[in-house]
């Protein structure tokens, strides 16, 4: 997923997108698009949040059922 986003912003032979006052236009055109990188960073942070919540729930579920077997943990019908 994150790789996909990075690929969108990639440019062959690109340079870091830092703008300096007297910069030739040719350099500006070779900038790697920074926005997908920001998106990836955000999605990583969100993923971290979801993951920690998931682990917490897993621990609590294990506490209740004594197993991680999903066929045992099936009180609900869906």
């Amino acid at each position: 997923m994150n790789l996909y986003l990075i690929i969108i912003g990639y440019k062959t032979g690109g340079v870091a997108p830092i703008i300096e006052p007297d910069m030739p236009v040719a350099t500006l055109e070779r900038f790697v698009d920074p926005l997908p990188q920001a998106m990836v960073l955000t999605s990583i942070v969100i993923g971290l949040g979801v993951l920690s919540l998931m682990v917490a729930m897993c621990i609590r579920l294990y506490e209740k059922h004594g197993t991680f077997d999903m066929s045992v943990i099936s009180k609900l019908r869906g």
Partner: protein
Amino acid sequence: MIGMTLIVKTITDFVVGFIIVFGVYIVLYGHLTPGGGFAGGVIIACAFILAMLAHGKDVAFSKLPEKAAHIIDSGGALAFLLIGWFGVTVGAFFMNAFGRGEVFRLLSSGMILPLNIAIAFKVSSSLFLVFSALAIFRRRSFRAMIEDELA
């Protein structure tokens, strides 16, 4: 003996301080070099987590008590919002209210630096709390919980 073996403890003592300084460096120079509030915050949190892994929870909590971590956690987020509100004084939410400064110096980007610091506080303490909550989770029987409630 609480914690891990002597080797781990000693080496941890050596590196924890360095890791924290490195994390702070990543935070403060986030607008000049790769990094920033989140990455630096994670590094700082890792230092405390390392201390907790090596020495057990008591040592880690003596450096960063749980309540303090909670306060920093919420306070960092609030600080982020408040800094954002400074922008309103010059026109818009999150508008750069501070001076820009010189390019490539430490104090050169106005609002980004304080925002990074706020994020770092928030991230480091909350990651530490998440880790400690998951690591110190003890299975308690329902009866023990009720007895605690009654006591």
